[in-house]
């Protein structure tokens, strides 16, 4: 069975602030959904709700028909949804390999310590960090490690929070290729929350645009980019010229 993550009419209030006012989206295993919107539109909040880091005020989140909203994040990970942090949060006192091994031990796979270290080695070579495997994580903060850790949990749905932030030029191109390659080879369902338009348009088959906690447009990347409402609310002229 392929995994399917469905959020329906999800709302989230923080005190009097309505961060999300009823957003729905679906992420299927094997597909990439882009989530875009201006700063403060509720993207990261939605991602945190989907990952189980916070509870929605109302609405439902289901993985394969099973409710996950309200479960603690470590249980949600065990069911197969993993997120990355926008600002990498490696376990500083551990080596890169150990960082990934923890995820393999405690995620959906429940690997034994020895097997987990082997898994970690394989994953690190996939994300191109095999040479840094024995480096203490405090000495580097990179998104590849976040990515490897999320994959190591055994999740089938990955929620990537601005993994391309701060990258440009060749670095950006390499990272986009890496995520694209991993997604295709391993068949994950991926939700990319992103500011970097080039990344979203290259990777996603479907794009959801939220502004002030509401979905204002969704569809194929090209349609969304040319949607007048989207251009007005958020994209502006710069992205109308963006490479595709």
């Amino acid at each position, binding site marked *: 069975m392929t995994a399917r993550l469905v959020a329906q009419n999800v709302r989230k209030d923080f005190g009097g602030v309505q961060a999300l006012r009823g957003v729905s989206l679906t992420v299927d295993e094997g597909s990439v959904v882009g989530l875009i919107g201006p700063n403060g539109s509720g993207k990261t909040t939605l991602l945190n709700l989907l*990952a189980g*880091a916070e509870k929605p005020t109302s609405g439902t989140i289901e993985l394969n028909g099973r409710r996950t909203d309200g479960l*603690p*994040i*470590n*249980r949600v*990970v*065990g069911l197969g949804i*993993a*997120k990355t*942090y926008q600002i990498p*949060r*490696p*376990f*500083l*006192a*551990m080596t890169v390999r*150990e960082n990934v*091994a*923890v*995820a393999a*031990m*405690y*995620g*959906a796979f429940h690997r*034994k*310590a020895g097997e*987990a270290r082997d898994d970690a080695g394989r994953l690190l070579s996939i994300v191109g960090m095999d040479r840094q495997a024995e480096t203490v994580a405090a000495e580097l903060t990179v998104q590849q490690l976040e990515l490897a*850790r*999320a994959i*190591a*949990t055994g999740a089938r749905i990955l929620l990537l929070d601005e993994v391309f932030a701060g990258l440009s030029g060749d670095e950006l191109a390499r990272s986009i290729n890496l995520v694209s390659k991993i997604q295709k080879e391993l068949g994950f369902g991926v939700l990319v929350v992103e500011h970097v338009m080039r990344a979203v348009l290259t990777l996603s088959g479907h794009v959801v645009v939220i502004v002030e906690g509401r979905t204002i447009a969704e569809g194929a990347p090209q349609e969304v980019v040319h949607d007048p409402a989207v251009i007005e609310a958020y994209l502006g002229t710069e992205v109308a010229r963006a490479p595709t």
Partner: protein
Amino acid sequence: MRFPTFGPTLYGLALVMVVLGVATPFLPIIVKVQLINFLLFVGLAYALNFMTGLTGYVSFGHAVFMGIGAYALGSGIDRLGFPPLLGVILGAGLGAAFAVGIGLVTLRFRGVYFAITTLVVFLAAKNIVPEISELGGGSGIFMNLGFQPLAEFYTIWTIVVLEIGLTYWVTHGRLGYGLRAIKSDEDAAKTVGVNASRLKLILFGISGMFAGATGAVYAWTLSAVLPDTGFDITYSLRMLAMIIIGGAGTLLGPFLGAVIVYVPYNYFQTVQSLLGLQLAVIGALVLLIALFIPTGIVGTVRRYVPTLRRYVE
């Protein structure tokens, strides 16, 4: 030379414990008493190391679990006619039970807030227990056990052996990875699937169990349980001092810390002019360690002397 299975630190500690276990019956009585007192320090250091060392949660309340162990032994012997060993087992059980019960509430707090709640628990226990007449009220429980140095010695010796073994087992398996992740970044640990609440509660329970058992043996050596000595905050501080000095969360650190803290304690009490100064000396030492080598002796050696990293853990 290769140590394929357990590693030199565990072999070294095992050797020390075996030597102590074999030699003690033949040593003069004064040395026996000192070794019992020393192993009580070691037992307390490893007990706190399970919680504060391995999860990073600082507890000022461990003297409470000691006190619970002491009162369990006292009540078991005085009321139920238990032999001392059974009293120690009861102390361990109640220490674990209270730790889990208290932990269910206090472990909802993190960092300094958790530390404060443990202090509150300590103050509450210190004030409540002397009011309970079933526990001897303000005058405590006198057991009249006589002097049983070898039985006391082998009981605390067994407790320490179990602690060292369990510390090794916990730090070398799956559990150890999860705990290091929690200590490093609890939220990120949950994000990769670590059930942080459960692991912390298990460790707090183990920690309370050993503090309870050690507290029971301590009461046994005094043949009495007194509210003042049963709930003495300096025991909490001494436990913290030992693991900070030796290296929190390490296998060897609590043992080293116990040696370093025990020596001034023992020596200063025999010299009239130094009497009472041990707390000042240990306090100053903890300050210096915290300022200059916050990972303690073992952590610092591992960091700066890579060749020893394989031998010291």
